Each structure stands twice: as C-alpha cells, then as structure tokens.
C-alpha cells in the first residue's frame, strides 16, 4: 500500500461507453488493477479493449461509471492532466523531431532546463537501449527501434501507469518475442503499473501478472494466466485462450469427486469442479496437452475414446494430433521429451485410443435440468 492509501492503481467502476445507438463499446465494465502489476486486457478485435485503454488514458469519456487512478476520480480530466502515458499502436512518433527531441517532447512542455532534459533523456535512451540513435529521425529507424522510442517517450514523464495499445502488432514474430521480454525487463526496472492491450493470448500469457479477457464489451474473466487457462469462466474464455476439447452431456451419476456424464461419445467421467445433480446439463473441457494418444489400451480409470488419426503435425518440440472420433476432431499435443524417432510410432490413419485422466478436465458450466 502506498502513502496515499490506495491499493489499486487503476479502478473502473461500472463503466459504459456508447459511441452511437448501434455500438456499445463497453458494457458495465469493472476492473481493479493493482499497483505495479503487469495487467493485460485480452480479446478479439472490436471487443472494447482499446476503448477501455482510451478511457483510462482520457481520450474517451465514459457515458456511465467512474474511472479512478491512484484512488482519485479522473472522469473529467483531459489526457494531459492524468498521471498516465500511452504507447500507441502505430507509435505516433513525431516525424519532424529527432529521437532525442521526441523523447524530450514532454519535458520541453514542462519547461525543464536543458541539463535536466539531457539527463532524463539520456537515462531513458539507456533504459530502452537506443544509445547512438539520438540524432536519427523516426523514418530512419526500424520497427523495433521506433517501438523503443515510443516507450522511452511515454516513460520519461514518470507516469504512474503506462498504457500499451497492441504495441507489438506491427513487428515480425521473432522481434515481437524479443520486445516482449524487453517490455518485461523495463517493467521490472521502472516498477510502475503496465496495462497492456492485445489480441494475442500468447503475448498476454507470457508477461502478465493478471489478464482480463474481454468480449463484446464485457469482461468475461479476470485472473492470473494459469487461472484463465486451467479454469476458464466460460466457453468463450476456454475457446479464446489456447486450443481445447469441449464436451456437453447430461449428468447420470454424482459421486463426491466426480460426475458421470452421458455424452454423444458415451459415458465420460469428469472432475466435479462445480456442484451438479443428476439430470443437469454440463459442459466440460480437456486441454490437448492432457490428452494422450496411444495404440495400447489405456490404464485403469481413464476416460477413453477410439478414433483414427486424421492429422499429425510435427513441430519439433511437440506434435499435434487430430483424432477423428464420431465425426469430431479431438485434439492432442504430445511434448517430445525423448528422441522422437525412438518415441513415436503413430502415423496417419492409425486406429488409436484417445485418453485422459478425469482429474485433468475442467467443468465449465452446469445448467439445471
């Protein structure tokens, strides 16, 4: 907790944003972002995540609800008076200013002395590893370098919160991975709150302390990456984060720990993550990496199905199997922990067993029946 007593860096309380009658960008969104957190807002395009960020930045005003930064209501403060800075998707670097002057821009607005400006800009240049590039103009920089300038410019003002709007979307995959690690390092170094908007679940998973999954203007779930991945709040979250296998069926038997569910594949056992009674309709899922594919009969007490190998995608570190069972593809991922040639004998069109431990499934939804 800070001196000022606020635990949360950014709080949204029942925020609704309507652009016109037909587009509701945010519906009753509530969020609490803890101080110093790397917080991601994840969702498909058009889900309202950028609007959420722009509301925090002060570029949009909510129709309803309250926005607080460090415990203070900021609904009516313009962007230039909020203690937050933003890294824009297209960087929005000023083309007529050099790298140095771009970073110095907010300092010059504050009328700092030349020596103060020099000192602060140099620190930033050091932090984002741009030494020697200060005199260049934006058009002379690569995508990754522009990204660094945008970061330095947003951080030089020492904001309480840094907002990042899909900052890596225009970089190629390798550079994106590298910049993500750089972001993480810079976050550790400056120690302020980062709010990161992205549609890429891998990006969000790899760096965030917490993730808010958004869809159609509502927050579907807020949680740590493992929470979101292992116990998704609903089908949307389960489907959006990673690949998964869904099963729907009616409960036929309930024990203290498990449910027996009648599905179109027969009776399957699933772990009782939520209360359910006989006759309820339930939906549960099993992640592909927890599904085994073997030619041998599976061990005792496992859920198993029989199917044919439809697709096999070898990816070096792991292989993805798509097994056709009753006209449905079941996904499985096998991590290769041994030399592959010794390990795998399964090939296309093989008849195989698909099996998993009932403890590894997750019960997403129970509907009373």
């Amino acid at each position, binding site marked *: 907790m800070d001196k000022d007593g606020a635990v949360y860096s950014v709080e949204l309380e029942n925020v609704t944003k309507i652009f016109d009658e037909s587009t509701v960008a945010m519906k009753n969104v509530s969020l609490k972002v803890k101080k110093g957190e790397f917080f991601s807002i994840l969702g498909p395009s058009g889900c309202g995540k950028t609007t959420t960020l722009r509301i925090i*930045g002060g*570029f949009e005003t909510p129709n309803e609800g309250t926005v607080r930064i460090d415990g203070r209501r900021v609904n009516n403060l313009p962007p*230039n008076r909020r203690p937050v*800075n933003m890294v824009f998707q297209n960087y*929005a670097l*000023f083309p007529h200013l050099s790298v140095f002057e771009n970073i110095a821009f907010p300092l010059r607005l504050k009328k700092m002395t030349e020596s103060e400006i020099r000192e602060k800009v140099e620190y930033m240049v050091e932090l984002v590893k741009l030494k020697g590039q200060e005199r260049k103009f934006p058009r002379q920089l690569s995508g990754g370098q522009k990204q660094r300038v945008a970061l330095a410019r947003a951080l030089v003002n020492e904001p309480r919160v840094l907002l990042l709007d899909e900052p890596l979307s225009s970089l190629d995959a390798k550079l994106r991975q590298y910049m993500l690690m750089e972001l993480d390092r810079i976050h550790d170094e400056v120690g302020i709150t980062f709010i990161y908007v992205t549609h890429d679940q891998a990006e969000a998973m790899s760096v965030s302390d917490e993730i808010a999954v958004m869809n159609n203007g509502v927050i579907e779930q807020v949680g740590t990456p493992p929470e979101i991945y292992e116990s998704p709040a609903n089908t949307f979250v389960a489907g959006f984060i990673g690949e998964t296998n869904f099963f729907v069926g009616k409960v036929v038997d309930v024990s203290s720990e498990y449910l027996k569910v009648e599905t179109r594949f027969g009776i399957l056992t699933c772990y009782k993550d939520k209360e359910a009674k006989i006759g309820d309709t339930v939906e549960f899922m099993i992640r592909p990496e927890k599904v085994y594919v073997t030619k041998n009969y599976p061990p005792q007490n496992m859920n198993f199905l029989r199917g044919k190998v439809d697709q096999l995608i070898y990816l070096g570190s792991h292989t993805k199997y798509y097994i056709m069972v009753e006209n449905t593809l079941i996904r499985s991922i096998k991590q290769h922990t041994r030399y592959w040639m010794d390990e795998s004998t399964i090939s296309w069109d093989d008849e195989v067993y698909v099996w998993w431990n009932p403890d590894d499934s997750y019960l997403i939804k129970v509907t009373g029946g």
Partner: protein
Amino acid sequence: MKRHDIYTLPILIWLSLFFTIPLSITVIMSFMSSTPYGGVTLPFTVGNYVEIMKGRILAILWRTIRISALSTLITLGLSLPVSFFMATSKWKNLLLMATIIPFWTNFIIRIFAWIFLLGNNGMLNNILIQLGIVKNPITFLYNSWAVVVVIVYTYLPYMILPIYSAMEKFDFSMIDAAMDLGATKIRAIFKVMFPSIKGGITAGILFVFIPALGSYAIPELVGGRDSVMLGNLIAWEITTARNWPYATALSNILFVSTALALFLYLKIQGSDGK
C-alpha cells in the same frame, strides 16, 4: 544529340514556344518605345523603367502586394479550420465536392453574383433596409475591401485543397500522443500538426498569393478608384493608352516581384528546422 535528349525534346519545344519566347518578347519590348499609333520602335531605352520608378506606380505596386498579402492571410485563416473539419469529418468526399462545385460556374459570373449581393440595390442592402437597420444603402462595393472579399472567395478552394490533402494524410493519433505527453489540444496542433502540414500550407499560400498579385477582373468589377491594382494598370496601358512597351515593363515588374516573393518564401521555409 544524345539519345535520351529526344525524350525531352517535346517539353523543350513546348517551353520555348509558350514560355521562353513570349517572356523574351516582353523583356525586349519593355526596353523599346511606343509610336503614336500604338506600335513599337527602336532604339533601346530604359525610359519605361525610369518612368515606373519615378512615382505613383510604386504606390499601386505596394497596394497590389498589400491587397494580395491580406487576402492570402484571410484565406489561410479560413482554410485551416475548414480543412481540419473536412479532414476529420465523416463526409470528407461530400465536403470536398462542395469545395470544388463553384468552379463549375464561370469566374466572371461569380463576381457578378457578388455585385448582386453587395451592390447598393443588392440583396444585403435590401435586407438591412427592410429590417430597418439602416435607412440608406451602404456602399459595400467599389473599394479595397470588396476586392479583398472577392479575392478571398475566389481563391479559397486553392488554399483549402492543398491544406486538406496534407491534413488528410496526417496521422491524428499524433495529436492524442502529444496531449498524452502533456500538451493542450491547441499546443498539440501547433507543435505536432503544423510541422507535418507545412508543405500544404506553403503550396496554398503560393496558389493564392501569386494569382492575387496578377488580379485584373476582380478590382475591375468590384474595386474603386482607390483599389486599382497592377493588373488593371497593365490592361489600361495596353488597351486604352496603347503603350505596349510601358505595359510590358510593368508586367516585368510584376513578374520579378512574384519571383522574388516566391524565392524569399521558399528560402524562409527551407531554413527553419529540418
């Protein structure tokens, strides 16, 4: 002749026929004298230029520059917000169309429309009298202000179009960025937008100032005795006084002052920043 010179030949012919030769003729003619019947005669003399430098023509030259500069300034002042509005509007293309539509009507007709609007028996005066605001019609026309108003009206699109096209390409998220970094909206526009649309502004100023310097029809139709511009004087010397050498000397003065204005402006533009 080298092979690639062939390709530049048509342009060379074009420029010599329609630019270099006429210009040379005016330059040569301006150093000759006129005959009583409107002809041109030798020997060469600098008499025409001496005559110009002597007096009252300088006042007209100065007035021409003043009216043109003032009109350009007003046009710029109007065009910046209009272009900004157009560039950020949903109905960009419609507004662009509306800017261009007046070109479909003949230039002279449009000037007469202003006479109809502002004349002593014009619409504006009729309305003012009907409403009882004034008793006798106000003379809006036949002075420098009327000239300025009509120049502004006529050349406004030439200013709007280049500025609009520069603004349209401008990335408006830079304004957000500047505001995010602590600038007010006005400062953001001045510090970030203006440097980016400088080219459009320069083009607009040149497109308006240069033709305004050569105005003839506008001061002729809506101007008065106090608003004679260089263009009118040249026309008078050619048609009424039939003094071609003197007229060409005047037009050369106009040519040189235009070129000078252009040169100075580009020099200033080029020197700041970059």
